């Protein structure tokens, strides 16, 4: 099992011939991901170390049966790339690109929600199902196979927590980086729903940060729909209001979006919240051993 990406993933990399696309596309393939195609307009017919390159996503679907897309194109071309993927029938779109204008993402989000496609990102590290597939820029070597589903708005913080879990002998079913932008294709709820349904996932860890109210919504969702143990970490307790903390979405607007409010919302539904990455890893370890 695992969620979002797995052994059935047939990946097309949009922007495969760019330096980032090439580096990570090949890294993903080396990990064992089935990278079936790349897309770069004007470079159709070429290949990147044996991966065929097409001019359009539609061709990659027809000729290489791609079902998942990984997007590395620059911000100004990224929404076009997302529309192209979804309209070509790609079911899962994972967009690494950051700095996509928020209004453009609002339109994209509204459009693809109506189409039933899954989108992860933008401004995200991607999705890794250890032992099955890695789609994005997550350093897979930090993680091992196991029963913990991890969903996070942050990249390196996820690696930190994953590393601490690995040191405690715990592995992951899937790590989902949903992205740090104000509007992302999937909020916490979508992966939570999948983790709940995934037989391999035994415990869920949610890694949030300041800004927006997705953690609060996740708390309500967990209360109503999730039976598996959920633990959480929130970053940004010391962040001042009105300042963008690295991620475009990590900003406290007025009094909304504080880490404290999120922690309280999560605790109110019985989700333990660690105060440091180390503590959350220890909490997960404790809970995991009870649960297993």
């Amino acid at each position, binding site marked *: 099992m695992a969620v979002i990406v797995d052994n059935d993933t047939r990946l097309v990399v949009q922007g495969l011939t760019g330096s980032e696309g090439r580096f990570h596309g090949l890294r993903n393939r080396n990990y064992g991901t089935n990278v079936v195609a790349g897309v770069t307009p004007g470079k159709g017919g070429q290949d990147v170390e044996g991966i065929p390159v097409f001019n359009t996503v539609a061709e990659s679907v027809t000729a290489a049966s791609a079902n998942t897309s990984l997007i590395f194109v620059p*911000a*100004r071309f990224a929404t076009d790339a997302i529309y192209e993927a979804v309209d070509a029938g790609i079911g899962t779109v994972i967009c690494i690109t950051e*700095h*996509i*204008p*928020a*209004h*453009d993402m*609002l*339109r994209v*989000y*509204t459009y693809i929600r109506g189409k039933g496609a899954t989108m992860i990102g933008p401004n995200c*590290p991607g999705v890794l199902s250890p032992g099955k597939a890695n789609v994005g*820029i*997550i*350093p897979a*070597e*930090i993680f091992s196979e196991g029963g913990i589903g991890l969903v996070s*708005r*942050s*990249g*390196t*913080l*996820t*690696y*930190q927590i994953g*590393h601490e879990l690995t040191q405690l002998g715990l592995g992951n079913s899937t790590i989902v980086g949903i992205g*740090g932008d*104000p*509007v992302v294709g999937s909020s916490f709820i979508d992966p939570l729903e999948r983790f709940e349904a995934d037989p391999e996932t035994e415990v869920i860890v949610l*890694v949030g*940060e*300041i*800004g*927006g*109210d*997705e953690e609060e*919504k996740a708390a309500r969702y967990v209360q109503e729909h999730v039976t598996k143990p959920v633990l959480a*970490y929130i*970053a*940004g*307790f*010391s*962040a*001042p209001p009105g*300042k*963008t*903390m*690295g*991620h*475009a*979405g*990590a900003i406290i607007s*007025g*009094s909304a979006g504080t*880490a404290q409010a999120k922690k309280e919302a999560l605790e109110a539904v019985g989700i333990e919240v660690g*105060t*440091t*990455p*180390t503590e959350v890893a220890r909490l997960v370890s404790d809970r995991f051993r009870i649960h297993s």
Partner: protein
Amino acid sequence: MDLYEYQGKELFERFGIPVSEGRLAATPQEARAAAEELGGPLVVKAQVLTGGRGKAGGVKLADGADDAEAKAEDILGLDINGHVVRKVWIERASDISKEYYLSITFDRGAKKPLYMLTTEGGIKIEQVAEENPDALARLHVDVLEGFQPYQARRLVYGAGIDDPNEQKQILGIVEKLYRCFVESDAMLTEINPLIVTPDGDVRALDSKFTVDDSALFRHPDIAEMRDVEAADPQERLAREKGVTYVKLDGSVGILGNGAGLSMSTVDVVVVAGGRPANFCDLGGGGDAQGVVDALEVITSDEQVRSIFFNIFGGITRCDEVARGILAALDQMKIELPIVVRLDGTNAEEGRRILAEAAPPNLYVEPTMLEAAQRAVELAA
């Protein structure tokens, strides 16, 4: 990016939203000249990117050029919530019969633009929402549907505005504000107060305007509005260097890689009993130049007493970061204590490199928490 009142009004005007005529002035003399051009009774308003300027004495009436010059003299240089007033906006004074409130915010939760309109203007909208929620008309817009005239009607009727002359003008302003919001890539456009004069004219008397930084590339005119001099000197330097940096108020300088880990590092320093001096995200890189730039920004803050390097190598390799740190120290001759924690890809190699070079002010710690504690001690 936040805009000053006068900049927001300039955008309002471009989209046909009525505002009062005014002039910008950076000196009392300019204020006098502006007042002479405008004539009549005037208002002199501090231009600062913070609220509460009225209470702080940043908004004053003036009955002519002499008075405008005097009031500008009073206001220029004022410190309002840590923002020094360097410019005033002088506009024709308005007779106010009613104060309304109209805004569009980028509602992240609903993933839709959110309109709010109330006749209870002039005060904070949060207060209206809490004390008199029925007086606040709210409406989400589906971005694919776009603006439709019924939305303006729902707001105007919902807010209980029943004068047909006001209705007509506000229906127009509601529509124009949507265009302004979308076409400026705004995250917030707020008119508070939206006034009605005794003659029944409706005008925007103030503006609050935030534009999406990621969209500035397609709005060079708005990007140029950025007032680089108003920023904190460290934040200004960071912008010049392209470093992701937020000034805080403590003594432990922080440098992490990745936004989430850097935020977490700030928190962990607090947990360890320290006061972070800043948030700084090294990003995906870790080369010497990136480290040098970040250190330059961090050390330009004289409050900094120690520096905490918290690196989790993913794509970034710790050995490269270690070399970057050594190169930076070499270039910059920093004498402050530097605590380094390296983990993840090639962490051992990185630690070995640092141990071999062993600069006297460099402390390598095995975990994030221990490193934070050490940095806090060293800052004491």
